[in-house]
């Protein structure tokens, strides 16, 4: 009997089209898998078996009538709990939203529903997407399927782990400073952060509005392109959405899979190596560069001097925007409401204070305080204002680099997955995980992380990040697909085949 959970989304779509299976069968297989392994992985915060099966039945009916809604009609998916889902709880990994069921769908979710993808459930994440390990979830950490004692990356550790553990063929993530790409790297999966504005943010509970971007979390580059084409494109409900067609990303993947990158100029970012970079990660990066060269690409070094200030810039802009975004969680209209102890007849203000004190975790509070400070009168120019200037310089560095090369590459994250608990009390060490991914968010350019091997010292996955100019998402797909194809050839299969089998429980 076929284990449908081991198939890629593209293979499942083909099987559905060929009538070899039904969406109900696929959906059930994944729900079963979730039932057997998620106790150990904890990728999901909420599983919607009934809803998913109902959508699967509808998909099967459309197939039977010969009118599938999209190529992925009937292929199940998991959605990060930061996207509003009508009728399904949406907590953002926070206590403060416990029990909130949105009355509306995010545009990304609406597009998934329109395309017929049954939604298996909502995946775990660092609270309000603040973190790089999913340890900051108010509902407990997610475990890395490669080693359950280690983190799956973050903030979208749930989506990456779900895909890596074969609990879902596809997932949606969101990336504010690396939350799609870094979990992809440390779980041996593919993650794409589209060009800012390429995928609607309507219904994405904002962490930092000017940095957030939703995107695909998958096991293959082709699956990411298929999913990207479903969720991408202009949305009148998001004023920052780009009014342009998504482009033919699947075609770019097909071009890339030939393994021929002749004429492509690849830039290695000088500033993204050295101290703090794990030797095994750098070794795999060098291997990838060699492969790209063999495929015909010209690899050169490019300096982006302001990138060394990107992390500091990011940690002013993000908290500033977040402090304002999170102000709405005040117990007045939805979510948690906590009455202060020993206060008879509390005022609205006292209820707000008690609720926010109980409802937000320490990392959220830290960033609210940082952001409030950065925006305060008298400090605005020195912090937020200055950060915006550096942000402009980062964009200029990208523009200069892209005059010399077609794409930029770096290791996605400086290290492989670290043990759960190791950095949770050291915010600065935690923040360093996103060193390589943050510049793309500051500049709004697209990026992909593709698994590129296992680090020698710990046998854990690492990733290669490919960045391209804004709106040139097709390039990251082409290069990602080429590397994926060349590595698969070398290894005789995908990297995930080398992940240990998870113990299944009934």
């Amino acid at each position, binding site marked *: 009997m076929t284990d449908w959970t081991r198939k890629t989304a593209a293979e499942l779509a083909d099987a559905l089209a060929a009538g070899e299976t039904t969406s109900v069968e696929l959906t059930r297989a994944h729900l079963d898998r979730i039932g057997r392994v998620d106790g150990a992985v904890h990728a999901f915060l909420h599983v919607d078996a009934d809803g998913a099966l109902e959508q699967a039945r509808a998909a099967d009916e459309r197939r039977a009538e010969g009118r599938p809604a999209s190529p992925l009609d009937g292929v199940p998916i998991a959605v990060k709990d930061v996207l509003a889902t009508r009728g399904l709880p949406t907590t953002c990994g926070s206590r403060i939203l416990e029990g909130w069921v949105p009355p509306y769908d995010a545009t990304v979710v609406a597009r998934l529903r329109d395309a017929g993808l049954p939604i298996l459930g909502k995946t775990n994440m660092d609270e309000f997407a603040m973190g790089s390990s999913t340890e900051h979830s108010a509902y407990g950490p997610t475990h890395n399927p490669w080693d359950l004692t280690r983190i799956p990356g973050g903030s979208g550790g749930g989506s990456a782990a779900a895909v890596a553990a074969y609990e879902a063929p596809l997932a949606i993530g969101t990336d504010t400073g690396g939350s799609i790409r870094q979990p992809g790297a440390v779980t041996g999966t593919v993650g794409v952060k589209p060009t800012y504005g390429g995928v609607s943010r309507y219904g994405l509970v904002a962490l930092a509005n000017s940095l957030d971007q939703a995107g695909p979390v998958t096991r293959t580059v082709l699956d990411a392109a298929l999913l990207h084409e479903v969720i991408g494109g202009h949305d009148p409900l*998001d004023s920052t959405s780009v009014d342009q067609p998504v482009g033919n990303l699947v075609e770019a993947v097909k071009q890339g899979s030939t393994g021929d990158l002749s004429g492509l100029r690849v830039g290695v970012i000088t500033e993204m190596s050295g101290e703090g970079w794990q030797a095994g990660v750098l070794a795999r990066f060098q291997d990838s560069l060699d492969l790209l060269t063999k495929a015909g690409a010209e690899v050169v070094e490019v300096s982006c001097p302001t990138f060394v200030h990107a992390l500091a810039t990011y940690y002013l802009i993000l908290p500033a925007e977040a402090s304002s975004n999170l102000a709405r969680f005040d117990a007045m209209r939805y979510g948690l409401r906590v009455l202060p102890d020993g206060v008879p007849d509390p005022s609205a203000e006292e209820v707000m204070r008690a609720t926010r004190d109980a409802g937000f975790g320490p990392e959220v509070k830290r960033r609210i305080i940082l952001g409030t400070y950065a925006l305060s009168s008298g400090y605005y120019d020195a912090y937020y204002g200055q950060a915006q200037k550096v942000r402009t310089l980062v964009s200029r560095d990208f523009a200069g680099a892209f005059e010399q090369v077609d794409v930029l590459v770096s290791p996605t994250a400086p290290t492989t997955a670290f043990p759960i608990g190791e950095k949770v009390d050291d915010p600065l060490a935690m923040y360093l995980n996103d060193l390589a991914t943050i510049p793309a968010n500051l500049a709004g350019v697209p990026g992909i992380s593709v698994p590129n091997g296992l680090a020698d010292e710990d046998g854990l996955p690492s990733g290669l990040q490919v960045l391209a100019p804004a709106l040139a998402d097709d390039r990251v797909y082409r290069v990602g697909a080429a590397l994926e194809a060349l590595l698969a050839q070398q290894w005789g299969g995908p990297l995930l085949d080398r992940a240990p089998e998870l113990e299944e429980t009934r």
Partner: protein
Amino acid sequence: MTATLLSFEEALERFDPAMGLEVHVELNTASKMFCGCSTEFGAEPNTQVCPTCLGLPGSMPVVNAKAVESAIRIGLALNCEIAEWCRFARKNYFYPDMPKNFQTSQYDEPICFDGWTEVEVDGETHRIGIERAHMEEDTGKSLHVGTSGRIHGADYSLVDYNRAGIPLIEIVTRPIKGTREKAPLVARAYVAHLRELILALGVSDARMEQGSMRCDVNLSLAPAGSGGLGTRTETKNVNSLRSVERAARYEISRQAAILDVGDKVLQETRHWHEDTGITTSGREKSDAEDYRYFPEPDLVPVAPDPAWVAELRAGLPEPPRERRARLQQEWGFSDLEMRDTVGAGALTLVEQTIAAGAAPQAARKWWLSELARRANEQGVELSDLPITPEQVARIQAMVDEGRVNDKLARQVFDGVLAGEGDPDEVVSSRGLAVVSDEGALGEAVDRAIADNPDVAQKIRDGKVAAAGALIGAVMKQMRGQADAGRVRELILEKLG
């Protein structure tokens, strides 16, 4: 807790007032500033809401193009520069009626800036500098339930978010100085002028009593002749033209009393109380209040196309002052008649009534006497009466034709205002037409003479003035439906 006051005259001997007026105008766009919800006034609470105006997690704003258009037209009418490029900004503060706990407003990049306008007080022209006019969204409305009706001492509070997100334009003047004892009148004249201008633009119904136009009066005093600016107070909730004048007057007297004994005026928000005519201290407004403004990252900059702005400029209505001068000349009104017409808010109504065929004086008469009295009794604006200028013109036409007299005309007004239909329908359903049947009139006159032999004798003796009593008796018989002039003629004929 009554403040010590210095008399207005004494206050002005010692101090020079400076004012700044901030007026919020609720636009009459069909949908809200950042979402598609209806803006209709008076709907059931919380029925005109959506994820965006409720500030639900994940929701995003989209700018209402019509509101931008209205903002630009207001700016152009106030001789402002129109920004080629401007942004919205978040004004961060916590309040339960604010769904996101920040207001999407504009900060250092207003859409309109550096304008001016002129108002007249007692024949003197005052030029008022306009610092800026910017776009923002309204908040929800809190209703404090309990005996106090205020937040303090309320049993509980309810919030209606129907108002949340309604587009507002905030118009801010530069400091108005040198107006001396005229300051309160200038403030009032400015707000009245602004209201007229907004109405002429058709961008808001500008009803102060309903809150669709709200005024904050900033006022400070400096020692007379010093030319400086003192510490200001910001008086909120000033919601009628009369209150604008009174609040300014009150603050001048109150602040003067404080400064006069060497104390300092506290920089604070104050609340105006219409009933008692005083202001009381609100929250202290100091540097502690930090709105942490920053550009709204969910919106792209507003960059109005210069060609569009030029088009809007070309389409502006005639400025109110020019219009008044033109109409006064066309209608032949005296200055007093014109001022009363404008003051009653009847200018446009009279204009439309004349356009529908009524003579200017007749149009003025109905609106400023009969209808003004009824509006006053009901406590509504003239324009809120359920009667149209066309209907008023039709009633006057009936008077001109002799179909009804003035007394009957009043009954026709009653009928129209009571919703009984058009004037013609009211006349026929109430049977109000003047009786012109000479036979019936003659019989009524004969009966009146027979019933009042003493009066009849007086008239025969030449006391024509006594005819009034007989006319009254005839009118009574005819239930008012007779032409009084014709009745008089008949009486004199018969007794002459």
